[in-house]
């Protein structure tokens, strides 16, 4: 499939009073046309920074690209002048933020806010833009859009505001839509509605989506592929089935074990021990080693490369090295792996394949 966006070896630092925060430490991934790529990982792992750097929304004064490329439309976005970036933002790549209560301008009617990217990026008349705006508002499910487009954000509920933010993001039919925890701030029923809406829309307009979330349940629901981030790196990437049923990285094991499940009646939820790595002084080897019971000696000395598990599945853990000792994943992970053809625990009637 056609690659729409390629991030290669991206490294990015923030300059702070405390020193250089190495927030992104070598991230590579592709986004294919029409797919939804979920990025998961704990707080502070660099999900938002990665996506904001794609749109270049980080403060210019304190953030710096140290290495790597972001290729979009034959252009390297890390090097594009701000003026050209403005032509891409909102038109080719757009973004939905986490908190719909604060992401709309409180003193501007919502219609005007939806119309803005249309007037900015497309050569259309005001009347036409207004027509498109009302259509968009209807599409995202704002009832009575003809009347309500004149209203202000405070006159809408949180769920409706997120729908409006989605309308803004879709205004120019972007090739890439970045959704940074679009449902985290909403209650569960509204969450489900917004997810349905996003799936519907993706079918209609065929954009590629990068979907950031903490919620693995959401991932299973919306994503085609998943990238797991830890300490400013992607530690594992694969299709949803590969990540859920044949995970390779101990951090992914931890994440999956800490996911509440309805069918397995576990007494208590698993929590990954320890704290996230200090990005001011990132550890030398595998950043997860200190929290992992599966750490090898080499993990403390050298960062693991990406090992290929299948065409679509890669994981950065020394456990995949041919010379590594064979370790047993946690029992709940083995249970999962048993159902995945191709995993080493896959069970047919006769035994392992």
């Amino acid at each position: 499939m056609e690659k729409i966006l390629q991030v290669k070896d991206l490294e990015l630092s923030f300059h702070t009073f405390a020193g250089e925060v190495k927030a992104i430490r070598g991230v590579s991934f592709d986004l294919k046309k029409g797919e939804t790529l979920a990025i998961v990982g704990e707080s502070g792992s660099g999900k938002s920074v990665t996506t904001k750097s794609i749109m270049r929304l980080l403060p210019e004064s304190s953030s710096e690209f140290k290495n790597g490329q972001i290729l979009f439309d034959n252009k390297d976005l890390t090097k594009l002048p701000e003026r050209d970036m403005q032509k891409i933002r909102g038109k080719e790549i757009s973004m939905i933020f986490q908190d719909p209560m604060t992401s709309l301008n409180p003193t501007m009617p919502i219609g005007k806010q939806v119309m803005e990217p249309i007037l900015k990026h497309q050569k259309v008349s005001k009347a036409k833009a207004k027509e498109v705006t009302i259509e968009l508002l209807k599409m995202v499910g704002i009832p009575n859009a003809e009347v309500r487009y004149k209203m202000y954000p405070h006159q809408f509920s949180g769920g409706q505001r997120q729908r409006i933010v989605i309308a803004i993001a879709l205004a120019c039919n972007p090739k890439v839509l970045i959704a940074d925890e679009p449902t985290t701030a909403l209650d569960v029923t509204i969450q489900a509605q917004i997810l349905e809406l996003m799936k519907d829309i993706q079918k209609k307009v065929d954009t590629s989506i990068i979907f950031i979330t903490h919620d693995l349940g959401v991932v299973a629901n919306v994503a085609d592929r998943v990238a797991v981030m830890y300490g400013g790196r992607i530690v594992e990437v694969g299709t949803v089935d590969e990540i859920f049923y044949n995970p390779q990285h101990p951090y992914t094991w931890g994440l999956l074990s800490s996911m509440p499940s309805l069918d397995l009646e576990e007494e208590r939820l698993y929590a990954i021990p320890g704290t996230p790595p200090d990005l001011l002084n990132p550890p030398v080897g595998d950043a997860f080693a200190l929290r992992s019971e599966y750490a090898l000696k080499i993990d403390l000395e050298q960062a693991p490369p990406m090992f290929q598990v299948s065409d679509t599945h890669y994981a950065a853990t020394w456990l995949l090295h041919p010379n590594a000792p064979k370790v047993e994943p946690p029992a709940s992970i083995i249970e999962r792996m048993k159902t995945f053809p191709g995993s080493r625990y896959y069970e047919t009637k006769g035994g392992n394949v």
Partner: protein
Amino acid sequence: MVKYVGKRLIYMFLTMFLIATATFFLMQTLPGSPIASYNKLNESQRAIVEKKYGIDKPKPVQYAIYMKNLAQGDLGTSFVFKGKSVNDLLASRFKPSFILGAQAMVFGTIIGILLGIIAALRQNTFWDYGSTFFAILGISIPSFVFASLLQYWVASEWHLLPVGLWNDGWKSSILPSIALAMGPLALSARFIRTEMIEVLSSDYITLAKAKGANGFEIAFKHALRNALIPLVTVLGPVAAGLVTGSLVVEQIFAIPGIGEQFVSSIMSNDHATIMGTTLFFSAFLIVVIFIVDILYGIIDPRIRLSGGKN
């Protein structure tokens, strides 16, 4: 909205009533008598004058008469400018004060807002420090110092503008307006800088950027209106500052305005004029505060003036 305005008007009248009452009785405690300057009068002549101005009657009666006249808009008769009503005195002196105040307000806030925006957009650069320095000067140096400096350099030394008085058309108003404007200018520059910095870091500004807006659109279409909202609330105090500023600045430039007259009426113990001017200033400030509240509702859609449907 109509209901809201009605309610506000009633409160405004009530406030005026209380201010008038308080001022009336405070005036009685002032040392000296309004006709102390008539010291060549003998007992019977003094009695005639007192009778003429009604100050021979008991205080409560005087108060009742004053309030009755006030209700009809009559502020009484000046003790010093013989036979002239306070209303006429104020009217004849209203124009210069109004022109100075309005010019200072408009000039001060507009330049202040611009300086504040520049400082916020160019945070921690020469522009920011320059405008901060300017604003601190404006806040800490009293207007009479500016007035004297402007008068000395621009008028006496360089002969660019008149030294004082109100006889050279608009030119006469420039220096006193600038001197008066320093306060509002400095205040709004500081205020807008802080607010803009705060607003510029909010989520909806990031979203505006994510839509492809450029720096100008972000500052003026998205950030400014939100940063202005809190500034509106200090316009009342700013107007009060202009009133006090005018007392001094009009004196220095010898402008025949209300402020200058107020000062001289205090010097000459002209009770009726002092009271009339105090009430006039109070009414002015009450109206300003009222306008500010209405403005607030217009500029901030989240505030719909309550008291009925809008």
